[in-house]
């Protein structure tokens, strides 16, 4: 007999729905105002739609791969497995988290559902945060794409090496800060917390057959897709809106000087929301920018952009999401500035 479990974190679904729909109405109104302010609203709307669909088509396969892995994790990986696999020393465990992208090679769209699932399996906060921030860069696919893009570019070798070193250091630092200061109940949203403090049901409900296990894991994937995908859709719409209504060349024109160039590239990385697997090719087009600012683009963008920020909100409380964006922002800003001022490449 199935035991009905309490629905945790589902407080007032009607109110939540109304809030989402109200937000949607406001967004549609803002969109209508912005379109009417352009010379050619029809062309602007067409540009917006093409950009939105382009970003969705490019990113959704990675989200699908992420929820596919998430479903398998839910059914086949137990909390005991997680404890057994990771080092007991918190610093080593956080370091291992920063390198977990080599086991789960996912970009920023796929990493969020995987991390959320691992949190629900009892993964330590510091390890999960380090994984979340590092995996979009610290994985073999991005290593290859960055190498291909920059291997023949000026200062290319330094950019390739520093991209991975800076990402690993920032992910480790932010992860360790979370290890010192954060408790799961203070940081995670209820939906990511539900399995914590409860008996892990994976073992007691071990699938009897491969077919049953696969079916169950895919049922989880279906729901994860809808749960996480809405943030991708909204993020893609926001990024498309920003690109349609804010001139990129105007932003680039601001990018002079050691500090301003870094800030502009960070803003571009956040607004453009380009997938980390290909952002190195885009960074190549900013040859007039300083090396520090290009590195800021390549390290900050995969950690925080519009769509990943919204996806983080599915896992963490809003205050924590703010920290997860501000800390990498400040660190990449300082490192980029230091490179521009003092590094001789």
């Amino acid at each position: 007999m199935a035991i009905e479990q309490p629905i945790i974190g589902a407080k007032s679904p009607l109110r939540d729905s109304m809030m989402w729909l109200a937000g949607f109405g406001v967004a549609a109104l803002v969109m209508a105002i912005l379109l009417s302010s352009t010379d050619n609203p029809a062309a602007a709307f067409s540009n917006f739609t093409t950009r939105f669909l382009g970003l969705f088509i490019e990113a959704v396969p990675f989200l699908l791969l992420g929820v596919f892995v998430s479903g398998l994790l839910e059914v086949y990986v137990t909390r005991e497995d997680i404890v057994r696999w990771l080092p007991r020393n918190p610093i080593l465990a956080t370091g291992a988290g920063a390198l977990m992208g080599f086991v789960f090679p996912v970009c920023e769209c796929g990493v969020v559902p995987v991390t959320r699932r691992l949190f629900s399996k009892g993964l330590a906060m510091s390890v999960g945060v380090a994984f979340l921030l590092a995996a979009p860069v610290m994985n073999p696919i991005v290593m290859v794409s960055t190498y291909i893009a920059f291997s023949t570019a000026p200062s290319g070798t330094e950019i390739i090496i520093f991209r991975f070193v800076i990402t690993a250091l920032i992910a480790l630092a932010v992860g360790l800060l979370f290890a010192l200061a954060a408790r799961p109940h203070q940081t995670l949203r209820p939906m990511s917390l539900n399995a914590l403090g409860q008996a892990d049901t994976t073992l007691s409900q071990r699938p009897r057959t491969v077919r049953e296990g696969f079916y169950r894991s895919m049922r989880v994937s279906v729901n994860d897709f809808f749960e996480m995908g809405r943030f991708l859709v909204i993020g893609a719409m926001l990024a498309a809106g920003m690109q349609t209504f804010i001139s990129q060349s105007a932003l680039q024109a601001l990018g002079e000087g050691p500090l301003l160039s870094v800030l502009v590239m960070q803003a571009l990385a956040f607004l453009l929301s380009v997938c980390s697997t290909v952002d190195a090719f885009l960074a190549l087009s900013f040859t007039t920018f300083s090396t520090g600012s290009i590195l800021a683009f390549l390290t900050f963008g995969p950690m925080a952009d519009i769509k990943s920020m919204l996806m983080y909100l599915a896992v963490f409380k809003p205050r924590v999401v703010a920290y997860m964006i501000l800390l990498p922002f400040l660190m990449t800003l300082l490192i980029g500035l230091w490179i521009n001022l003092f590094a001789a490449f």
Partner: protein
Amino acid sequence: MQLDIRPQQTQITPNDTPQAANRADDDNGRWMETVKAGVLLGLCGYFVYNIAFGDLANYINLRFMWLTYVAVALFGLLGIISVISLLRRDYNNVTSDHTLIRWDVILIMALPLLFGTLVPSQPLGASAVRDNLNFQTASFGVVQVAEKDPLDRNALDWVRTFAQPGIHPSTFDGLEADFVGFIISDPTYPPGHVVVARSVVRCCVVDIEGIGIPMAWAGADDLREDTWVRVRGVFEAGTFMDQRTPILQATDVEIVPQPDRPYLYP
């Protein structure tokens, strides 16, 4: 006035019974699962349509087409799983971690499908790249002039060629060109001049950049923006928008249909 002091009887309607409530939940769950299956299979169909009819070229660099095959396979798989759960009446609307999938969530996930089917697919044109237009750029890599026959070079090849370090624009004087692009016109351009442009996409349209070659032609002022043309002519160094650059002196301009692949890939 007579007061009714009889004990009030609560009317129990059929809808208030626990069984009726369960039935309503069951109906809601079935509808929701049906719509979820519809969205998943619809998105699968949308991707298949784009692949089959070539519309994908309006959105992404076709080098990454394999990603859309992954999407088709996984959308199809998840859609079929939803259909199986409908057939098994196994559609509890609660995720494994006990959160609710609500109607608004499903609506948001249907938006790409709605936009994709209701708004006609078309590539980004002049209005999207005119603010981000390069006449010479090394950002796509530089090719040597000798590598390709001049008449086989597309607009991107020419822009790359012009960007070779240390080469004066007059180096290209007299070279013949024959390429396809779309027209960008602007009141600030000199009379009789337009830009023949192409959009360059590395990953998807999010990173789009425009490249263009200034063209002088007697009928240039009559060409409408976004018109696709095949141009032939010879280069001659000149000044365009305060920049010393090769300008194509067109001898023949032919209006052509939009190419199957509207973007160039570096």
